[in-house]
């Protein structure tokens, strides 16, 4: 490294050295020679990417779990405005049947207002008149431990209440899960790429450090230092570098998610997103557990650094007698 020798006053520049009182033995391997500032920046950014990616995976996983559990613990019964019976009577009839069925926790009919609000994004606000005959939904929560026979229930409803249709969301559910899995895979592969990049950078850095400190390694070897001792001189720097870069990266990453959470909370913002949120996704904010996952980054970064540098050093040394 160039910075490697910065602390040695160049032959052309200055002279004079510290008095005995002031000095302490220098580390055998100069820190600046192994892990300089640009390396710190590069690995920090990698750690930041890793944090953001991990956070995103956590977020998506959370959303998907939300969907899945919400959807599978909930079915809807749609009551179409048909025939002669008033919709309110239809709803009452359906609710009665539902409440009588074992394994159903609750059956909550939408109000007319809620029903029309659901159509708003499609038809524009204020355009859905209250008196417009639109289908109404009954939200049914199922006891997942002891679920009812949905097929039988569907048949029963169809026969006894005119215009009632049971929708168990199974089509939706599989579609959503498929989409989410795809997104998750993408995030995972980004994570893998980030890790590969970090490893590459560390390998490159160790090799560079090895070259910059080739003399040191050779001299240590020749005065009888053991291989492990030599490797440790490098590892220690990569350990600290990994931890440092990891912590900064995670803090930045967590900051990003906090800012994100905050922004989403603050803006009365996009009604569409909000509507979507509330309907299906759940809060688009990283949960505390997601933040906890980020804590894995510094130790992993340090681990990668230590292992890669150790491997590089030993490989280099094994070429000598």
């Amino acid at each position, binding site marked *: 490294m160039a910075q490697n020798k910065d602390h*040695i*006053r160049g032959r052309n520049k200055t002279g004079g050295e*510290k*008095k*005995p009182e002031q*000095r302490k033995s220098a580390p055998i391997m100069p820190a600046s020679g192994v892990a300089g500032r640009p390396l710190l920046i590069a690995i920090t950014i990698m750690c930041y990417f890793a944090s953001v990616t991990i956070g995103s995976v956590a977020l998506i996983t959370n959303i998907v779990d939300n969907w899945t559990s919400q959807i599978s613990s909930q079915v809807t019964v749609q009551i179409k405005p048909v025939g002669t019976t008033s919709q309110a009577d239809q709803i009452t009839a359906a609710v009665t049947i539902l409440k009588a069925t074992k394994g159903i926790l609750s059956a909550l009919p939408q109000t007319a207002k809620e029903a029309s609000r659901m159509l708003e994004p499609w038809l524009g606000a204020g355009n859905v008149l209250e008196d417009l005959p639109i289908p109404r939904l009954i939200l049914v929560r199922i006891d997942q431990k002891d679920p009812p026979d949905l097929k039988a229930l569907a048949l029963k409803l169809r026969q006894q209440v005119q215009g009632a249709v049971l929708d168990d969301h199974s089509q939706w559910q599989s579609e959503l899960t498929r989409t989410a899995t795809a997104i998750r895979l993408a995030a995972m592969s980004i994570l893998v790429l980030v890790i590969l990049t970090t490893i590459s950078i560390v390998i490159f850095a160790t090799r560079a450090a090895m070259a910059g400190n080739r003399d*040191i390694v050779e001299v240590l070897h*020749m005065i009888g230092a053991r291989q492990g001792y030599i490797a440790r001189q490098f590892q220690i720097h990569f350990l600290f570098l990994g931890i440092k870069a990891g912590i900064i990266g995670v803090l930045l990453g967590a900051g990003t998610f906090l800012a994100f959470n905050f922004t989403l909370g603050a803006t009365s913002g996009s009604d569409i997103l909000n509507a979507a949120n509330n309907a299906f996704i759940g809060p688009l904010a990283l949960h505390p557990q997601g933040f906890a996952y980020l804590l894995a980054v510094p130790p992993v970064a340090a681990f990668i650094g230590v292992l890669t540098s150790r491997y590089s050093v030993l490989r280099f040394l094994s070429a000598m*007698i």
Partner: protein
Amino acid sequence: MIHFENVGLRYGVGPEILKDISFHIEAGSFHFLTGPSGTGKSTLLQLLFLALRPTRGLISMFGHDIATLSGRRLPRLRRRIGVVFQEFRLLDHLTTFDNVALPLRIQGGRESEYRHDVEELLNWVGLGERVYAHPPLLSGGEKQRAAIARAVIGQPDLLLADEPTGNVDPQLAERLLRLFIELNRLGTTVVIATHDHSLMAQFEDAPVWHLNNGYIEVLR
């Protein structure tokens, strides 16, 4: 202590540098090694230092046949050998003091224990005022003396010195020779490769081996 039998060495596919070297070095002896430039003196010292393996022949050192010695045991052997390299090989980022103390440090020595010895030795080789300078700030002769100090600080069983007086004035050369002789009195086996005839003339008791064309000839 050191035994060479029909040792030959070639680098890769090049010509044989050492052709048929056989000798025995007694513990506590003092040898000069001379010969024209490029004849293989440094090569021979590297064999003695276990930095090279011979292409053929047998070397035994300190009672070990080095052909059968495992790599894990080499560090311990190396610690018994002090070397002054022809190119010094000091570490630029360490002070003269730290450079000289390095062999003690990697053996787990503590600075408070060795500080006095190191400083005394540095005074003896005339580096008392440059103790805390880094090698890039040293003159050629100062570097050479630091390299010598590093080789002898651990009172090794074997001292190998490759052209140890090439960069110092005759007075200083004599002083350094006295250091080697003193060390030899204390029990260290010494082998010095040199071109300096006046240096060899100053220590008449030591045999002079002349290396030429891959063979050793004993001059005195």
